């Protein structure tokens, strides 16, 4: 009798938890859904549905300022991703595998960009560029994005290497592979998912960054988030919903692609054929 009531209560508790969780998921997704839905609304002033239209997307594609901002964002994100992924992967390898001089200090240094508030990073970087009398441009934006994203790559790669079977490399060396062959045909394929995840992280952080960019972008170096911010500040229009929807779509496609890539990579690495065969 008692246990029966206990069971019923437990079931009720689980049901309550499930309902609450669904509410939280609704809270997480409703604003995004609203944004997307109203980018297709033909009413301009208020958030009342008046009918489907693609007008705001048409306006967007004709808008030279937005085209320019997208181009800048892609240039910055691509450059920052390449530079930060190479340097960050090297650092992650060194941290996980070797006796690095000053290992503890290096680890603290790597955590610093993750910890220090973005607003402080942006202000500090603009102070540096001012100190060096560097003109603010796309270059300063790229430098800033590299600075704040190297750590993420290094930490992801290091975590990936922590569960890495060293005997595979030793076997390759024993079988006569040179150091470079061992790296390119054994080590790199094994850490590739970590490197990809790191690169993707950098690309997304870079393409979405507003705060740091707003400090270090000079005239003519407007990125997409800066352009969106400017549009939001000058008046809320359906075009902002449309451009936001596109940015959301790009981010989600990128994450999905990286997920698939990671899964695919892992299965080839651990398949019977093994790497490099």
């Amino acid at each position: 009798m008692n246990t029966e009531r206990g069971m019923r209560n437990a079931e009720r508790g689980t049901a309550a938890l499930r309902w609450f969780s669904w509410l939280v998921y609704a809270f997480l997704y409703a604003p995004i859904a609203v944004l997307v839905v109203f980018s297709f609304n033909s009413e301009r002033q208020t958030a009342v549905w008046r009918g489907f239209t693609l007008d705001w997307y048409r306006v967007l594609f004709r808008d030279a300022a937005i085209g320019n901002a997208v181009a800048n964002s892609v240039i910055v994100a691509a450059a920052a991703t390449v530079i930060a992924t190479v340097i960050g992967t090297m650092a992650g390898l060194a941290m996980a595998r070797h006796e690095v001089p000053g290992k503890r200090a290096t680890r603290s240094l790597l955590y610093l960009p993750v910890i220090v508030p973005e607003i402080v990073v942006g202000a500090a970087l603009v102070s540096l560029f001012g100190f060096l009398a560097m003109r603010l441009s796309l270059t300063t934006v790229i430098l800033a994005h590299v600075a704040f994203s190297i750590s993420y790559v290094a930490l992801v790669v290091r975590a990936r290497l922590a569960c890495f079977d060293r005997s595979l490399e030793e076997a390759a060396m024993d079988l006569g592979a040179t150091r470079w062959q061992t790296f390119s045909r054994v080590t790199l394929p094994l850490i590739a998912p970590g490197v990809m995840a790191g690169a993707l992280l950098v690309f997304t952080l870079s393409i979405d960054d507003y705060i740091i960019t707003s400090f270090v972008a000079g005239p003519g170096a407007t990125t997409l988030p800066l352009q969106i911010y400017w549009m939001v500040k000058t008046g809320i229009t359906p075009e902002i919903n449309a451009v936001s929807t596109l940015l959301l779509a790009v981010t989600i496609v990128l994450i999905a692609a990286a997920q698939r890539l990671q899964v695919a990579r892992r299965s080839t690495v651990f398949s019977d054929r093994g790497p490099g065969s």
Partner: protein
Amino acid sequence: MKSRPAFLLIAPCWLVLGLLFLTPLAIMLWLSFQQAGLYGAIDPGPTLANYIRCVEPGYVAICARSVWIAVATTLICLLVSYPVAYYIALKARPERKNLLLALVVIPFWTSFLVRTYAWMFILRDQGVINSLLMSLGVIHEPLTLLYTPLAVMIGQVYAEVPFMVLPIYVSLEKLDRSLLEAARDLGAGAAAAFWRVTAPLAMPGTVAGIVLVFIPSLGTFITPDLLGGAKGMLVGNLIQNQFGPALNKPFGSAVAMGLTAFVLALLWAYATWARRRGEEAL
């Protein structure tokens, strides 16, 4: 392996972080002891005036408001996230867990600016909530929702929930279920089992979540800037303002240094706490 390749691997990272991270912070520290001249010029110090100015009542009020918003955000996040993490870790079907977790994380990957804008679109006078309530005839005048502390808090909670769910989930997932069964067998009710077994064992993840939400909330800029009113200035906006329109980099630097020191002190306290419990800090 020998340390020469290790040095070559790590050197570029040191170089970049040294030049683009430590040097800027050092310059900022130096700036914070200089004086602001006319039109944003910098007059040589050294002076403590910028730090003394930080404790003027107006600025103390901004700091207090920042701490208050961060505390409230953290508490609400905790209340919202704990049941979700608990549900995914202990109640959801195992094959569904990854999907449920991914659904929590995906919004975090999307632009912070866009997600904050979504709330502007929902909360403003002609926004979704007001349009809906007015068309239903519930209200006749729009409610003032945007540009209020409530709006800032909603935006902030919305942005930080994933950072609370994940560490709590990790802690709960690792938990030894036989302990829970043992507690129930020994006659503990559901509530007692939760408060005396589950909650203490999940404490590391809970504290990690609190730290991960509280710290970014302290220095937040976009949410108060877009969702808060003119009176809603927080520390982040103060720093931005001094480097921007107020043309006072030395004072802005002093505030930024204060914020950084506070954040580092909090993390140091957290790391010490975790080490004493014999756990690795997140």
